[in-house]
């Protein structure tokens, strides 16, 4: 008889159990849905004191029952909304030497658009039948307008995208010291172009 000296095979019967265990573990811990969206801050319910605003400082956006867009009294496609909002925000109509002159604005300084980004208000109206999708699309375009302007200023001042700074700020790996610096920068950019989107009976300002 020959001599058998080989190592016996390890029983693989329970590999299935291990595999199932891993499978269940990953099924439970990972989620399919992506949780991201447009952040908004609703105004508190206490009556906010009324403020008088010049018509030129208001950018009216209206959405009707059929999700059609009316901007400053004229029909507009969604594609053009961002450009138009940017032109309005970046206008800086107050002339040089007057208080409230916008030094960093690169707009046309038109007489019928906003005096100063700080005063510029976007007024978003919709009916009860307007679809939520259209509303989100408009919100998205308006936020995009703000973001592009903020990016521009941020690149000029700090050489970094505003959006990138924000992502870094909310990242958990960023150290506290870094966050402190970022916070100052973000605040500074936000004061240059403060987001002011108002909605009738539920006006919102951004974070």
């Amino acid at each position, binding site marked *: 008889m020959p*001599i058998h000296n080989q190592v016996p095979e390890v029983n693989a019967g329970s590999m299935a159990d291990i595999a199932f265990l891993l499978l269940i573990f990953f099924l439970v811990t990972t989620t399919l849905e992506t949780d991201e969206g447009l952040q*908004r801050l609703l*105004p508190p319910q206490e009556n906010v004191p009324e403020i008088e605003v010049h018509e030129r400082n208001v950018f009216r956006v209206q959405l009707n029952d059929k999700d059609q867009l009316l901007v400053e009294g004229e029909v507009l496609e969604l594609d053009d909304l961002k450009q138009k909002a940017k032109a309005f925000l970046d206008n800086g109509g107050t002339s040089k030497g007057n208080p409230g002159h916008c030094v960093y604005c690169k707009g046309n300084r038109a007489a019928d658009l906003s005096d100063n980004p700080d005063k510029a208000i976007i007024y978003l109206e919709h009916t009860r039948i307007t679809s*939520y999708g259209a509303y*989100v699309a408009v919100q998205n375009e308006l936020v995009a307008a703000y973001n592009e302007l903020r990016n521009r200023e941020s690149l000029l001042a700090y050489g970094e995208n505003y959006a990138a700074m924000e992502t870094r700020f909310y990242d958990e790996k960023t150290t506290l010291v870094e966050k402190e610096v970022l916070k100052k920068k973000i605040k500074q950019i936000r004061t240059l172009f403060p987001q002011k989107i108002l909605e009738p009976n539920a006006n919102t300002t951004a974070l």
Partner: protein
Amino acid sequence: MAKFAKKKDGDLPAVSTASLPDIVFMLLFFFMTVTTMKDSSIMVENNLPTANQTKKLEKKDRIIYIFAGKPTREYQNVYGTETRIQLNDKFANVNDVGSYILEERAKKPQELQNVLTTALKVDSEANMGLISDIKLELRKVNALKVNYTTSEGDAFNNLN
């Protein structure tokens, strides 16, 4: 014969795997108790609108979800096809939103109660009237941080 038996003893004995299932089950129970399952199944249609200027919602424990949309087909016999709000596992009216938020807020640890975000997961075909009503309710209970949850994509897809 005696010589044969001795040689057989020289082979390595098979590793006993009888206790492996026990170990696996132990691990399984460990994960089952430590991780939390997703809490609610969605009973409404939930095609989120798309947007690209979004921010990520990082911390799951600071979010209260509100779903809205048409009831899915299996619930349409009972609840009809009108857009409805879903809170936890139940369909609800607009008036229930406030108390739901307060209830959820009370469940959270003290230090998180002021930093909660309400995520609105609303079907893109829902009407804005309902959203306005929800927002009004949220303002009543001072839940001012809102997130319109969207999926990644071009915002122009929403219009058609």
